[in-house]
C-alpha cells in the first residue's frame, strides 16, 4: 500500500507542482501530456499523509521542548495557553466535525494552515538565534514552516478539485480573513517559543483529523 501511495504521490507532485506555483493551477488540465489524472481520493491520501507527517514532526519538536524546559513533569497537567488561532472556530469533537458542512470544514482547515505560515518562520528564526536548541531542532522548525506551506497548497488543490467536481460549492474562501491574524497572547505579548510549539502541535492534530473526516465524507469508503 505504501509503495503505491508513494508512486501516486510522486506523480501527484509532478502534476500538482505544489512548490513553484503560488497561484492555483489546474490539476492536470486536459491535454497536458505525461500527467495522470489523479482521483480525488488519491489527492486526499496525499494531503492526509502530509498532515500526518506534519503532526508527527510538531509532536517531536514539542517533546524536545518539554525535555528542555519542563524537565520535571509528574502529571500531564497543562496550563491553559491561549493560542493565536483560538479565535478560529473549530469543531471540538468527531460529531461536531462530522456535522459541519464540507465547505466550512475545508475553510477551517485552510484558515488554520494559513494562520501558521508566518508564526512558524518566526519560530524558526528565534530558535536559530538561541543557543539552547541544537541545529536539529531549529531545522525541524524550518521544516515545519515549509511543510505547512506545502500542505496549504495541497489542500487548496484538493479544494479546487472538489469544486471542480461539484462536491462543494464555490463559496470556500479561506484566504482572506485569516491572514490578518497575528500571534498574540492574551496579555498582548508575543508568544514564546514553547507556546508556539504547543499551539502548533494542537493545531496540526486538528488539521489531520479534519482532513480525514472530510475525506471520509467526500470520498465514500467503507466504514465512513
Amino acid at each position, binding site marked *: 500500500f505504501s509503495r503505491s501511495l508513494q508512486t501516486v504521490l510522486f506523480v501527484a507532485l509532478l502534476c500538482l507542482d505544489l512548490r513553484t506555483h503560488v497561484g492555483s493551477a489546474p490539476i492536470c488540465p486536459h491535454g497536458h501530456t505525461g500527467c495522470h489524472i489523479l482521483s480525488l481520493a488519491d489527492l486526499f491520501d496525499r494531503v492526509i499523509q502530509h498532515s*500526518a507527517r506534519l503532526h508527527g514532526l510538531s509532536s517531536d519538536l514539542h517533546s524536545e521542548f518539554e525535555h528542555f524546559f519542563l524537565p520535571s513533569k509528574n502529571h500531564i497537567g497543562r496550563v491553559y495557553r491561549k493560542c493565536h488561532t483560538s479565535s478560529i472556530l473549530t469543531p471540538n469533537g*468527531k460529531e461536531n466535525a462530522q456535522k459541519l458542512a464540507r465547505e466550512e470544514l475545508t475553510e477551517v482547515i485552510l484558515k488554520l494552515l494559513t494562520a501558521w505560515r508566518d508564526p512558524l518562520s518566526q519560530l524558526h528564526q528565534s530558535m536559530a538565534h538561541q543557543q539552547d536548541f541544537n541545529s536539529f531542532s531549529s531545522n525541524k522548525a524550518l521544516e515545519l514552516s515549509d511543510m505547512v506551506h506545502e500542505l496549504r497548497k495541497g489542500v487548496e488543490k484538493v479544494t479546487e478539485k472538489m469544486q471542480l467536481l461539484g462536491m462543494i460549492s464555490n463559496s470556500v474562501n479561506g484566504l482572506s480573513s485569516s491572514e490578518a491574524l497575528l500571534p498574540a497572547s492574551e496579555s498582548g505579548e508575543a508568544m514564546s517559543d514553547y507556546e508556539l510549539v504547543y499551539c502548533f502541535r494542537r493545531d496540526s492534530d486538528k488539521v489531520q483529523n479534519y482532513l480525514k473526516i472530510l475525506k471520509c465524507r467526500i470520498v465514500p469508503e467503507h466504514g465512513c
Partner: protein
Amino acid sequence: MDKTRDTPVLPHFTGCRSREQETFRCWWSAGTFSNLSEPGALVVFFQMKNTPLSDWQECPEYTATVENECYFSKTFTHIWTSYCVQLRATAQNITYDEFCFTVENIVHPDPPVGLNWTLLNVSRSGLNFDILVRWAPPPSADVHTGWMSLKYEVQYRQRNASHWDKLDLESGTQQSIYGLQTDKEYEVRIHCKMSAFHNFGEFSDSIFVHVAPIPSKESVFPTMVLLVSGVVGLLILLMLVIFSQQQRLMVILLPPVPAPKIKGIDPELLKKGKMDQLNSLLSSQHMYNQDTYREDPWVEFIQLDLDDAGEKSGSSDTQRLLGFTRPGPKGDDDSGRASCYDPDLLPDAEGLLAAHCEMEEHHPLVSESGPSTPSPEATDAPFLPFRTQPVGQSWINMDFYAQVSDVTPAGGVVLSPGQQSETPGMNPDEKKKKGEDAGDEEVEKEKKLQLLVVGSDGGYSPEVVARQVESSAPYSPAPENAYHALPPEPGEEPQTWSVGYLVPDGEAQAPYFLPEAPPASVLPPVSDYTVVQEVDGQHSLLLNPSAPQSPACPPNPTKHLPSMPAVPMGYLTPELLENLSP
C-alpha cells in the same frame, strides 16, 4: 515513603483517561482520609479553558458501578481543549487536588482484539519457525473514519521469561515474528497508541504459541550416524595409508642416517638425465676432490668439461658431458684443458688413445680447470666434458677413452687411463698392475674412474654415463649404478667417441667399450685396455681383450681415422697398441 501511615495522603486524582478520544473518565483516591472515602464526600469540579472561561462545573456523571470515578460523556468532552479538574471536599471548601490536561493527551486506546497467529514456515533444521500475528483494532476506536490513527506494538516472550521482546511499531494489523524456537512455548500480547502520541493502552490478552519440533530425533539421528561413520571411514583410510606407506612414512619421519656414500653423482640423477643437477654435482665434486686427487699422479681422471656447461653455451648438457662442444675450431678455447683428442694429430699414431693423455692434475671427472697439459689444445673435435687429461696427443674424434684396469666385483669398472707420455707399452702394464691393484675395493685411495663412456653412435646405446667414483668412498653399491648413459644429442656428430659405457642394469646397450676411433695415427702410449664385451646379469663386465670388434658396434665412420687400417671397428687391442705405439 515508608511512613505511609504516619504521613497523611491527601485525596488526589489517580488519573484521567480517554479510550476513544470521545469520552474520558477521571478517578480519585481518598488517601488516608478514611472519613472522606464515603461516597459523596469528595466532589470533582472541572473547568474547560476556553474563551471565555467557563465556570467550574461539577462532574457531569459519577459512575455508579465504579467507585470514585467521574465520567465525561461526549457532550462534555471537547478535544483540543484544556481541562482542569479539581477534587474538593463536599463539606469544606477545600481543594485537595487539581489536574489539568487536554483530552488528546490522555487517550489510551483499548487493546486490539482478535489476536491470533499462523505459522509461516519452519526452518530446515526444524529448530526455528516464523509466525504471522494478526489482530483487529479495538472496536471502540474509530479508525475507519480516521478519527483515530493507531500504532500497534507486539510483544512476546518465552513462557516463563521475565523480559518481553518488543517488535517495531506497526501501523497495519499484522506482523511477523521470526526466529522462534520450536520446542518452546511463547506468549504474545499487543497494545496500541495513537500516532504521534505516547500513551499506550492496556495490553490485550496473551496468546500462546507453540510449535512442536518436527521429528528432530529422526533428523538428527541419521546425521549423527553419518558423521560417526564418516569419521570411522576416515580413520580406516588413514590407517590403511599409514600401513601401506609404512616404509615411506618411516623414512619421512625417521630419515635414515645417510650412509657414507661415495661422493659422486647420484646414479638416479644419471638415470633420469638430470643434467643440471649432475653438472652441479660434478662441479662440486671437482672442488671437493681436488686435493685427494693430487696424491696419485698415476691416476688419470676423466675430465669433465663443465665450463661450457656453466656457460650455457647452448649445447646440451649431454653434449657437454660427452665433450661435444660447439663445433668449430676452438683452438685453445679450453683454458688449460688438455685435449686428448686432437684431430690434427690424427696422423699421429700416438694420439689415438685418450688414455695416454697426460694428466698433470688430478682432476676428478668433473674437473673444469683442465690440467695444464702441454699438449696442444686444438681439438676441434668435440670432446667429452670429461676427458682424460691429454698429455699431448689427443684423440681425433675420440671423446675419450679410458683403460679399464679392473672390474670390481660389484660390476664397476675401474678405469685407469694410462699416461700418454710414457711408452705405451710400459704404461699399460704398469697401469694394469696398478689398476689391478687398485681394483680391489680396498684400494680406495687411488682415484678410480668408473665408467663412462659415451656412445654417440647410433649403434650404441644413446646413454652416456659419466660417473666418477671417488676412491675415498668405499665401493658401495653405487658403482653398480655408476653407469648411466647420458643420451647424446641427436645432432651431434656421429662420432662416437668413445668409451664404452656400462649399463649396470644389463641393458642391451653396447656394454662394451668402444674406443671407437682410436685412429692409428693417434695411438699414443695407450695403456692396455680391454674391450668390455658385455655386462652379464650380475653386473660384471665381461672383458674380451681379444675381441677386436663388438658385434653391436657398427662400423664407425673412420673418416677421422683414415690411417688406421688395422684397427677394426675402432677397437684397439693391446697388441695393436703395441704395434701402434711409436
